[in-house]
């Protein structure tokens, strides 16, 4: 891999000047025949790609109100134009949300609107040429679907929806991205995104039990495939072996242990992540989510809890009920959903985030902590985009911001906030979300992290922050990789449950 340098911090964080074409050449690897065909897409770019792409676009416009309205409603006001971390980091004008949308909107206008058919130049309409298709491939793979732009748009136009539609169209003509499509293949074939087979998983969990025993002297279990357990934990597979993810997995296990909760993992559904969302394909999104439904039914669990993973939590919180019936409030006549909903214990939210679980236990007084164990850390919290803008925790709007912070404050003494324009719903993506966490996009990932790194540097300088907690597997992996390039220690990043793990008092339960 070529040496990648971090862009310099902006002296004053003003809006950068445009550098047209700066990221034009950057494109992730294209998926091979084998990868595409394994998940039902054409192996290579089909001969009649033009007609098929336009037909697919028409189909999506009739299936998704979001796309239809977002194609029409934009007035080019520019509210979003300086809000994307990739634009800030790369200065490429096509990374402005509005310009990214316009890559598709220009084609929409040409084929689906009267003025675009009659006066294409006047309204910025374009034919779908091979150059345009390549441009789509390049720039729709430079969006992490983080939704920051949608916060600021006066019509709520969400570029993530446009990116998803574009990727769906590209996949439908055999022009898919390798990283995401390969992972989707793995999740079906092996059960998780990392391709960790069942026996390896068992080994890892046994090793973890030994490690925790050595460190604490207590038998904390990591059960798997236990029928009749109360809680099924669905967590990103990175938690099983990647650093620092694994420390949070230990944290979840300790919380379950300390509260006497009967719980289990699943070898078949050993993955919370759902890359079906990243490629905007409803069938894949649904199929990947259905694994969890099947396992829940098979094991007969009463509750589903989801580990620290940003987009997984968006899918779980916002989409699982729709996709699989995993939730509450299905019609009496809805047999598909009722089948699962009757089994679940509705005194609890279904599904529940591990942070909701832990915070609930803290509030009930079921957990106690030695907060001094975290005194070596001066902690800040990075809100993960999908949690912040695509989900919720607790009973009130904004619980997704308060609950993780409450936990940190309950288990540690030193907590500082980063600049408010970069936290909560205005948080910046880590730079690696949305199916871009691949080495062939490392240049983009480094540049996209710029706005987060700038404000992290601020709290490091002012408050001596040495730990940035986050609740997303992609954030953790991305930061561990790119922070050294910005001159930070990679161990500065960790999970909220890593802090819980440090401080929790296990006793003899």
């Amino acid at each position, binding site marked *: 891999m070529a040496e990648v340098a971090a862009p310099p911090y902006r002296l004053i964080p003003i809006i950068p000047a*445009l550098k047209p074409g700066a990221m034009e050449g950057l494109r992730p690897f294209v998926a091979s025949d084998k990868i595409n065909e394994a998940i039902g897409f054409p192996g290579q770019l089909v001969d009649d790609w033009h007609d098929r792409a336009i037909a697919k676009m028409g189909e999506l416009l009739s299936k*998704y109100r979001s796309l239809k*309205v977002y194609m029409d409603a934009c007035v*080019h006001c*520019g509210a979003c134009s300086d809000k994307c971390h990739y634009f800030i980091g790369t200065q490429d004008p096509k990374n402005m949300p509005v310009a990214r949308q316009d890559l598709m909107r220009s084609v929409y206008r040409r084929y689906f609107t009267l003025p675009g058919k009659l006066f294409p130049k006047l309204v910025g309409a374009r034919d779908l040429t091979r150059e345009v298709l390549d441009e789509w491939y390049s720039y729709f793979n430079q969006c992490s679907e983080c939704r920051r732009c949608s916060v600021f748009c006066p019509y709520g136009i969400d570029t993530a929806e446009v990116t998803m539609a574009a990727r769906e169209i590209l996949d439908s003509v055999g022009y898919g991205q390798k990283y995401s499509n390969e992972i989707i293949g793995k999740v079906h074939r092996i059960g998780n995104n990392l391709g960790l087979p069942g026996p390896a998983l068992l080994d890892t969990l046994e090793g973890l039990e030994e490690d925790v025993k050595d460190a604490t002297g207590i038998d904390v279990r990591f059960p798997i495939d236990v029928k009749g357990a109360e809680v099924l934990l669905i967590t990103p597979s990175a938690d099983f072996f990647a650093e620092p993810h694994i420390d949070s997995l230990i944290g979840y296990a300790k919380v379950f242990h300390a509260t006497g909760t009967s719980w289990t993992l699943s070898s078949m559904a050993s993955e919370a992540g759902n890359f079906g969302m990243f490629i905007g394909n409803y069938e894949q999104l649904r199929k990947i989510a259905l694994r969890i439904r099947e396992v829940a039914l098979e094991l007969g669990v009463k509750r589903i809890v989801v580990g620290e993973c940003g987009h997984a939590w968006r899918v779980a919180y916002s989409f699982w009920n729709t996709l699989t019936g995993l939730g*509450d409030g299905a019609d009496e006549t809805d047999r598909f959903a009722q089948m699962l909903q009757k089994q679940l214990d509705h005194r609890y939210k279904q*599904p529940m985030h591990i942070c909701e679980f832990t915070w609930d236990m803290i509030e009930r007084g079921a957990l106690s902590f030695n907060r001094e164990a975290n005194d070596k850390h001066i902690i800040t919290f990075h809100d993960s985009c999908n949690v912040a803008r695509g989900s919720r925790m607790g009973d009130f*709007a904004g619980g997704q911001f308060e609950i993780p912070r409450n936990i940190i404050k309950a288990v540690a003494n030193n907590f500082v906030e980063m600049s408010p324009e970069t936290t909560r719903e205005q948080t910046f993506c880590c730079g690696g979300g949305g199916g871009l966490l691949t080495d062939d996009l490392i240049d983009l990932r480094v540049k996209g992290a710029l706005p987060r790194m700038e404000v992290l540097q601020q709290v490091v300088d002012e408050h001596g922050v040495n730990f940035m907690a986050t609740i997303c597997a992609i954030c953790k992996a991305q930061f561990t990789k790119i922070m050294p390039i910005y001159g930070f220690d990679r161990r500065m990043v960790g999970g909220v449950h890593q802090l819980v793990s440090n401080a929790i008092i296990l006793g003899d339960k």
Partner: protein
Amino acid sequence: MASILIGILFYFATLMFVVGLVYRINTYWRTPAPLLIPTTPAPTTQTGVVLRMTREVVFFESLFKANLWTWSMGWLFHASLALVLVRHLRYFTEPVWEWVALAQPFGMYAGLTMLLGLCGLWIRRLLVERIRYISTPSDHLMLVLLIGIAASGLLMSFVTHADVITVKTFFLGWMQLDIRPLPADFVLYFHLLSVAALLAIFPISKLLHAPGVFFSPSRNQADNPREKRHIAPWAAELEK
């Protein structure tokens, strides 16, 4: 002769406006939203959604967060336009409704602030590099059209003093399919032709942002996916 032409043109423009808008709104209405995608934090109840939408439509809440310059010019323009439209109701009602009469003096000056807002938006579009980059010719022309409408209106109010009584007679008749004479006034012709053009392009242009905002799933959905199952008809088919 000019009166008849303008009268017919207005029928045509109004027809395009109404039919086009009904068609568009119907399309938005009937297109399903298969997944819950409110931009969170979002209201958890329908009442909350109505409040969020009201703040968005009346105060441009999101734009306020995004950029104060665009917000102030945009809001000034839209609020002024609303007043101006209210004021113009007097040309279509006899007797004039009381609340319209009440708004009359404000409506006169709102024309000025409307023009100010439009010019501010255009200056931004011309001078800010990012906004210039994303602008299409139609974006500029739309502003030119609106500026033309506002300027010609102001000219008639404050300088040339158009014969508004005859104009009103024309529109009262027009509404009953009876075309009466308009005053021979080129500023008036320009004003009316521009308005007709605006009406006609409304349903096929970015002016669709007006109905569009109400149908935007990221703003009009309640955040309650765990409490209530939401499923689109085409997605439910997959379960059979």
